[in-house]
């Protein structure tokens, strides 16, 4: 016991952190670094050959890859807007005194959160299949046709996540003191004005956070198109992760798959950061409220 008390505490602090940090480094940090490292090589006749940034130069000219990136950004925007409108509307409706059976509705809307994406895709996929769904046959609609596929997947993702976002909004609304609403009512606000002028501005930090989280999720789109490809032909370039997956395991071109992974990750983080900075600037100009800056932190 020659160490000082302070030194002992330092040691014990790191002892508590070691299990987490070891796993964190081994299974998240190292793979990320390794992804970058292996993207600097190519596989020539079973030999790894260092080529510098040549994979990146190839990737920048890879029209199929950029097509898939644009497609998934389009998907992220469409899905994000629809889900946002739906989940805010549901949260606001459930927050009025007009809604009945609130606990029941909250439970039902949130239920898909417990259903794995794979099974959501299977259920909707079968409902989309003409042989199983006479309604679609009668209407001459085919959600699995190449033109409608994007919207078919938008619907699956919205079904999965709208209730989750709604739950977050409801929680932020109930966290607010009722004094503010009472003041609004005293000033003669009706329910609609109350929602638009008081509740929506209060929700703004949570909305920003959910937009960014939903965007990060959308960019990784994989499960839904991968599952649906058993029911309908789907191009590998529908989403970058489909492309990367087939690159790694179909064509076994791991270095190039790693290159595309790194680029996709960089694009996602870049767009998220830009979104955060833009909202921070707007919010900063509007008010100096602390919680906004904190929300943007994550």
């Amino acid at each position: 016991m020659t160490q000082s008390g302070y030194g002992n505490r330092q040691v014990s602090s790191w002892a508590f952190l070691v299990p987490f940090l070891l796993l964190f480094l081994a299974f998240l940090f190292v793979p990320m670094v390794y992804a970058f490292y292996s993207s600097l090589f190519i596989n020539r006749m079973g030999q790894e050959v260092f080529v510098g940034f040549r994979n990146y130069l190839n990737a920048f000219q890879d029209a199929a890859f950029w097509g898939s990136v644009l497609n998934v950004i389009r998907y992220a925007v469409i899905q994000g807007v629809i889900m946002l409108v739906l989940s805010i509307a549901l949260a606001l409706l459930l927050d009025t005194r007009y809604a009945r059976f609130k606990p029941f509705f909250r439970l039902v809307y949130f239920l898909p959160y417990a259903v794995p994406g794979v099974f959501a895709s299977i259920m909707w996929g079968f409902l989309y299949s003409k042989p199983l769904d006479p309604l679609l046959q009668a209407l001459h609609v085919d959600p699995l046709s190449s033109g409608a596929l994007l919207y078919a997947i938008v619907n699956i993702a919205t079904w999965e996540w709208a209730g989750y976002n709604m739950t977050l909004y409801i929680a932020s609304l109930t966290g607010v003191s009722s004094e503010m609403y009472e003041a609004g009512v005293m000033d003669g606000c009706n329910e609609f004005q109350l929602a638009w002028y008081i509740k929506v501005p209060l929700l703004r930090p949570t909305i920003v956070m959910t937009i960014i989280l939903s965007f990060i999720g959308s960019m990784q789109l994989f499960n839904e198109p991968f599952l649906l490809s058993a029911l309908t032909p789907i191009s590998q370039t529908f989403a970058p992760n489909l492309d990367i997956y087939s690159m790694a395991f179909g064509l076994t071109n791991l270095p190039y798959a790693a290159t595309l992974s790194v680029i996709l990750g960089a694009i996602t983080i870049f767009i998220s950061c830009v979104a955060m900075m833009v909202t921070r600037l707007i919010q900063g100009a509007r008010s100096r409220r602390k919680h906004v800056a904190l929300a943007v932190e994550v």
Partner: protein
Amino acid sequence: MLIQMESRPKAEREAVRTFAAWKWMVSVVVTLLLLLVACYFLIPVVWLLIAATKTQAQLSSTGIFSLPSHWALWHNVVLLFTYSHGIYVRWFINSAIYAGSVAILTCVVCSMAAYALAKHVFRGREATFYLILLSMMIPGTVAAIPLFVIEQPLHLVNTYMGVILPLVASPFGVYFLRIYIRDVVPNEMLEAAKVDGAREATIFWQIVVPIIRPALTTLFLISFIGTWNNFFLPLVLLHNQSLYPLPVGIQLLLSLISTPAADQSVPIYQLVITGSLISILPMIIGFILFRKHIVTGLTQGSVKL
């Protein structure tokens, strides 16, 4: 109340009544609208329940929401459980092993780290915390394929541990528990224990863990659900069917649907539909039972940001 009403002028009473009627109308319209949305969220699950009671022939010959004349649910369950020497049961057990182990280990590992980050003062604390926070922004699938490459020399590909270990280090878990420990565990209590000569490990297990049990329950449930629902990681890391969790197993069945075998020898639709139903039922029942814990956890983690 009644007397007051009576004493009011007639016109005012009329106005109050019209207003009440209008309010009632709005309430009915809003509730009907909410009911319509509820149908949207319930339709796929209801369809799955009904479809699981049908035979392959009935699936395409009867209306999608009409019940069959005689139920084939038990027949379908037997079909599923005996298919390929009961591989489905194996997948179910695997899912439980993955989700259970990840949930328990996440709670232990993350609460230890969160305790140090919340209550200890040491050099590098802030940097470590922000590194963990930042990593929440990394898209999960980016690391999956390099993970496969890294696990090969470690002999972790095609093992239970290979799937469990990468999911344990949850940045969200540390972030969530750090806030909870910082706000809920009183410093005086820790100081008092230290004065009494308690060791750090004793303080953690005997004082901190019992206090944060509600948060640990939440984290357990969230990471259990997350692991049970995970598809991409096991898909990439496992190539041995007997190690698959349910989503990967059912995906394997689904991928047989367009092969010729689907029409003749194997009733793929029945297997996929009944298999999906039995896979999501425990999650739905558990979700309804433990919803409160899950909601408080998710919202505390996000509202308090």
